[in-house]
């Protein structure tokens, strides 16, 4: 309490002293998706500002690359975005192939595409489950994990690993697709459409869900582009930008699919965009199953990889956004420098702008909707 006197008014008014509090969210918190720490400046429950503190999961992935051969480094990238490890591997392998001037054979490219799209579905399913959990809907998580399990089984049958798959190899594929591969993928895809409908009945028109997500964490297309935000977050703001269409890689130029975009750039639109993306990924898988070409799965790259001196940047559309690899070669067997552009980190930068003026409960929803993975943010 403090008294202030306004000169001339003759009235002494009493002002309630209300201090802002700093709330430390994380690094140990149920819904910061790992070890993210957000310092929130609160006025009551209203957020006046936020600051992300990252680095709790820093493993020096980029530095490690400088002391491994190109082949040796490949498994490390799986540990960045461990929810969609396949995408990481695809980006790295293609970047090195670009550096070598080699190309994966057509069969390898199609199988890569199928696995990557399955990985995208798995990633989005995990996002949906945890995002719903953050907003208080407990049940969708288990339905989502049920379907994700099917995808992980396909991965396991293909390469023996479920999470950090290391499914690809520079120049093509490590393994030939197993016998029932097409059948498994097809069975999953046929069933999956119905499953997505099921999630939508739980959430899409639920008044509480709409109330919790509509108008929350709005980011305009202009701001999103200015901040370098990519992936579903950018598309939900109405920007039709998808590297699979804009700069096709793997075998994406062979398949028909559309890019879902939102209008308002709020949490609800991001939810809708990702739901539609799962359907599109399913379509791509179904198309790809039909036309897997025959032929070798590994191109001619040689046993010891020695790219000519030079540099390369290769970006792919990972489930979270643009995942880029910038590799500098000095002509030896080890990269001179590897720089990774993690979509989660760049998207996370928009957090402060998105949470200002919202309540604490919305911060959780917004962190969820950005779909960050701390393994990738901190590397």
């Amino acid at each position: 309490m403090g008294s202030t006197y306004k000169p001339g008014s003759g009235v002494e008014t009493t002002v309630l002293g209300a201090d802002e509090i700093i709330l430390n969210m994380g690094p140990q918190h149920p819904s910061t998706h790992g070890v993210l720490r957000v310092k929130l400046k609160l006025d009551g429950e209203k957020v006046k500002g936020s600051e992300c503190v990252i680095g709790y999961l820093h493993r020096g992935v980029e530095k490690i690359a400088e002391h491994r051969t190109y082949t040796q480094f490949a498994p490390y990238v799986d540990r960045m975005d461990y929810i969609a490890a396949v995408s990481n591997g695809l980006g790295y392998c293609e970047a090195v192939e670009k550096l070598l001037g080699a190309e994966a054979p057509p069969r390898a490219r199609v199988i890569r595409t199928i696995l990557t799209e399955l990985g995208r579905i798995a990633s989005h399913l995990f996002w949906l489950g945890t995002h719903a959990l953050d907003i208080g809907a407990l049940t969708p998580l288990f339905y989502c994990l049920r379907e994700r399990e099917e995808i992980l089984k396909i991965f396991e049958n293909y390469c023996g690993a479920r999470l950090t798959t290391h499914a690809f190899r520079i120049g093509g594929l490590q393994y030939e697709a197993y016998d029932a591969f097409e059948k498994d993928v097809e069975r999953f895809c046929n069933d999956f459409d119905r499953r997505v409908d099921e999630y939508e009945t739980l959430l899409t028109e639920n008044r509480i869900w709409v109330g919790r997500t509509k108008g929350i964490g709005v980011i305009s297309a202009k701001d999103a582009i200015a901040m370098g935000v990519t992936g579903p977050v950018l598309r939900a703001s109405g920007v039709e930008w998808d590297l699979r269409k804009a700069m096709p890689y793997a075998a994406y130029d062979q398949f028909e699919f559309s890019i879902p975009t939102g209008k308002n750039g709020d949490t609800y639109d991001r939810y809708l965009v990702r739901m539609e993306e799962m359907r599109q990924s399913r379509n791509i898988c179904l198309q790809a199953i039909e036309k897997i070409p025959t032929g070798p799965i590994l191109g001619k790259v040689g046993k010891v990889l020695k790219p000519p001196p030079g540099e390369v940047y290769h970006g792919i559309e990972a489930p979270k956004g643009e995942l880029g690899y910038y590799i500098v070669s000095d002509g030896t067997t080890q990269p001179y420098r590897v720089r990774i552009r993690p979509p989660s980190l760049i998207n996370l930068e928009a957090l402060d702008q998105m949470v200002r003026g919202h309540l604490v409960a919305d911060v959780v929803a917004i962190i969820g909707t950005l779909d960050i993975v701390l393994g990738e943010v901190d590397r």
Partner: protein
Amino acid sequence: MDLNAILHWPYLVPIICALVIVLVLPLVAGYIVLVERKVMADMQVRLGPMRVGPHGLLQPIADAVKLLLKEDIIPESADRWIFWGAPLISVTAAMLALSAVPIGPAFLIAPGLNIGILFILGVGALGIFGIVLGGWASNSHYSLLGALRSAAQLVSYETSAGMAVVGALLLAGTLSTTAIIDRQAQDGVWFIFAAPVGFFIYLVASIAETNRAPFDMPEAESELVAGYMTEYSGFRWALYFLAEYTNMIVVASIATILFLGGGLRPFSGTAQLDFLDYLPAALMLGIGGYCFYRAPKQPVGVQKGFMGVVGLLCFGLAALLALPVIAPAGSILAAMEPGLHGAFWFLAKVATYLYVFMWLRFTFPRYRFDQLMRLGWQFLLPVAMANVIGIAVAVALHRPIANGGLGWPWWVAFPLTTALTILVAWYLVWVGEKEEPTEIKVGEEEETPVNA
């Protein structure tokens, strides 16, 4: 003092009832948690607790032992004594409220209490002190936010719940819990059918009052970690848990008394449906039989035995429920029927009400705090008020002409006013839809670095 004097001591039955409540309630609360976990698991395509005892039947015991053995941490910066005492306030208030709840006509701690409902509401509301003080004494931001939310939420929804209760009281014309049930037996209709809107309002408000999802703001696991309970551990934490589940039983009891006819059998006034008296026994028999059917399939010998014991227990209960019905009229056994069957039906209704709680919890996302407040004040309270007016009008219309009413039949007066109340509710929703959602300004706040 001879035996006869002890047996006729007026406080004997209340004391026994109170002891039963205090001793059995923690166990019951533990098993409600187990049931909740099982229901949740069923809805989420998994099995739930399966390890301790057959189908996890001993899980609550294991949990209680674990909680008792855990270290009781009092944070250094906490206000020791308030921190120590706050959970006790919550538990005491919740348990005290149960003293006016008649679990069947025979089991009641305070039989002569003529302000029963008022007492339950008043004492039950004291529990909020435990939450607010606990949140304050923890000296943690999360706890404080949880406590603040809890206080605001309880005050907001207590009003709506109170209004819904008033509606039922208008129908009953009394505050005594037993008299309210008698009135429903007399009228031959449970008040839920006379005042469905009132029941709905009470259902929503009672979920909010007990801080259950989708209104579990004060705990909000994914936002405030555990809200006011964040700093609590061990048995002090368990006390809060006990208080929460006791509160759930209390609100379910209020709803059962006011709207669902307390310990009355469905169609208690219809003699043609008297075969329903066999239903409780048949149900127990069925459960017991199922236990014996499952027993040989248990993996371990101990579990087989335990399953058998559970089956026997169910058969025992079946016998207990069946004998008074079969026994000749006038015998002591037959005299026990109202008490036993009343308790069965009362508990069955409470259980159903709690199941709805759980069902909602696993289906809906969580409301945001301001949305919760808007729902409470801008929708629920106006509808509750319209409901009170509607019921008052209906009661006047229904009252016999000799008593100054209009003598309209029951099935005209009440549906009419209910329809009008629903119209009001619909209008409120419509107005709410038309209202432009508050624009959220983003990025316009002054740039203030957090570290400043």
